[in-house]
């Protein structure tokens, strides 16, 4: 029984940039870690029961048919008392995670800001560009209900949002991303090492890197490669670059840039373009622009890989689609629903990646089993929180590029 208990917060790996937590701050995160698992497990099951026992029969009685879209289920479920209670709990859990994390960070912000400045001055791994504008899709709401989103701050040049993101991700994911919250990046590395064990990419671009927790494992796994991690949000990059330096990583640079305009890099500059849980943070117009730019800067024979939750499809039950959509409407992820409804292979094809060069692979978070027992989600879905992802990728064709 004990082997599916999440580890205590204090089991997380420490790095010098990680904000220090007091005894009670760690204990609050422990509560949230357990509470989030409880919400998705024991009582999360009530959503399906409420749907099957009450909501669906009532819908059929009223409309004389089954729901035809996940939004119809959403409208009906939002009237159901159980789903309302469960949603209120889940939203509060997210807000409490942000509040706890911000108390941790803000009470020691002077030290954190000073340390980040020191790391960044010495490492030279941070290149900010004040001319980069924050796109509307990053500022219209604060994503994940994190005050300040990825880009805001409490004062000029601070690291609040990056540090808060790092300090609380453990609780949000129920400890499923490992001691450095880098299970996603580790999963990518594990996948590529198995897929192409001899591949040696020289230049790697990570788009939408935030604090670099998924790009750093790639840089560590390919020490001879040069990794460029870009984001529009300076507030996240400041923390991310300092975090990478604190971890002793030297072959990564955090550059403030928009994925929509990669013009500073020439055609075919990179061997690998990576995004991790990023495409759903965009807008309908931005996503194809970014994919087209990614195609341009990717060398023939190179890899593009996107880690995301599975796309909605006709094969996926509407109820599951509705549950996966929860974050779009309740956790400030406004593009989540529309993005997952798209035929990503078609979108990728329009951006220049032929359908026959594309693939979809399943990847799982890789975490240290000595500290982190296996995720209880094995085989079970958590509708957006489990550390199980789909990788949408393509190997850019050689022949086509030569003909072009």
């Amino acid at each position, binding site marked *: 029984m004990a082997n599916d208990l999440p580890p205590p917060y*204090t089991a997380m790996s420490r790095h010098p940039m990680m904000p220090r937590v007091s005894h009670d701050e760690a204990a609050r995160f422990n509560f949230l870690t357990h509470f989030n698992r409880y919400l998705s497990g024991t009582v999360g*099951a009530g959503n399906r*029961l409420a749907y099957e026992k009450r909501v669906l029969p009532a819908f059929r009685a009223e409309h004389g048919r089954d729901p035809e879209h996940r939004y119809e289920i959403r409208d009906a479920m939002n009237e159901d008392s159980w789903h309302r209670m469960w949603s209120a709990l889940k939203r509060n859990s997210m807000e409490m995670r942000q509040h706890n994390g911000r108390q941790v960070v803000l009470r020691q912000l002077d030290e954190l800001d000073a340390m980040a400045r020191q790391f960044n001055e010495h490492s030279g791994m941070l290149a900010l560009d004040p001319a980069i504008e924050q796109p509307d899709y990053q500022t219209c709401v604060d994503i994940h209900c994190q005050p300040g989103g990825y880009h805001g701050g409490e004062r000029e040049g601070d690291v609040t949002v990056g540090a808060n993101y790092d300090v609380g991700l453990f609780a949000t994911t129920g400890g499923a991303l490992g001691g450095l919250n880098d299970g996603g990046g580790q999963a990518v590395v594990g996948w590529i090492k198995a897929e192409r064990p001899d591949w040696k990419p020289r230049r790697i671009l990570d788009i939408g890197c935030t604090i670099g927790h998924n790009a750093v494992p790639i840089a560590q796994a390919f020490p001879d490669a040069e990794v460029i991690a870009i984001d529009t949000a300076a507030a996240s990059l400041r923390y991310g670059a300092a975090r990478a330096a604190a971890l002793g990583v030297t072959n990564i640079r955090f550059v403030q840039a928009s994925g929509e305009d990669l013009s500073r890099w020439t055609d075919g500059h990179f061997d690998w373009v990576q995004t991790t849980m990023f495409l759903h943070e965009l807008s309908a117009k931005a996503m194809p622009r970014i994919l087209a730019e990614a195609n341009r800067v990717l060398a023939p024979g190179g890899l593009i890989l996107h880690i995301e939750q599975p796309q909605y499809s006709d094969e996926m039950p509407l109820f599951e689609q509705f549950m996966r959509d929860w974050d779009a409407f309740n956790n*400030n992820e406004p593009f989540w629903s529309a993005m997952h409804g798209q035929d990503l292979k078609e979108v990728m094809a329009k951006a220049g990646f032929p359908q026959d060069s594309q693939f979809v692979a399943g990847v799982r978070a890789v975490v240290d089993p000595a500290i982190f027992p296996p995720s209880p989600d094995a085989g079970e879905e958590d509708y957006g929180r489990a550390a199980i992802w789909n990788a949408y990728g393509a190997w850019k064709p050689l022949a086509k590029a030569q003909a072009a």
Partner: protein
Amino acid sequence: MSGELDWVALSGRRAKGKRPAFFDEPALDRLYSTVFALAAEVSALRERQDTIERLLDAKGTLRREDIEAYAPDRRAGEERGLATRAYIARIMRGFQQEVEAMEAHDPPIMDIVEKLTRE
């Protein structure tokens, strides 16, 4: 401590984006936010007490900084994790039993009362 900032006030800043109303009565939304923040605080208190007891067991004495620096080893971590799980199960009993009730689909108790009166 950060000198310039009122970190207590700033830490509670709301996220930009209209918050969904989950209940028809706004007071109920507020009540949930208070009850579950309190639940988290009770959990933290219980953990602190456990830390104190473990430190006293091990050393027979206590220093404040020992409490702050305490990190459970794997066994203690599992014991505390199990205690937290049991605590959550207690405060969430009403929710968990409603899930069971949805599965069971019992008839209203008056139906049974009337049935037994007839039989």
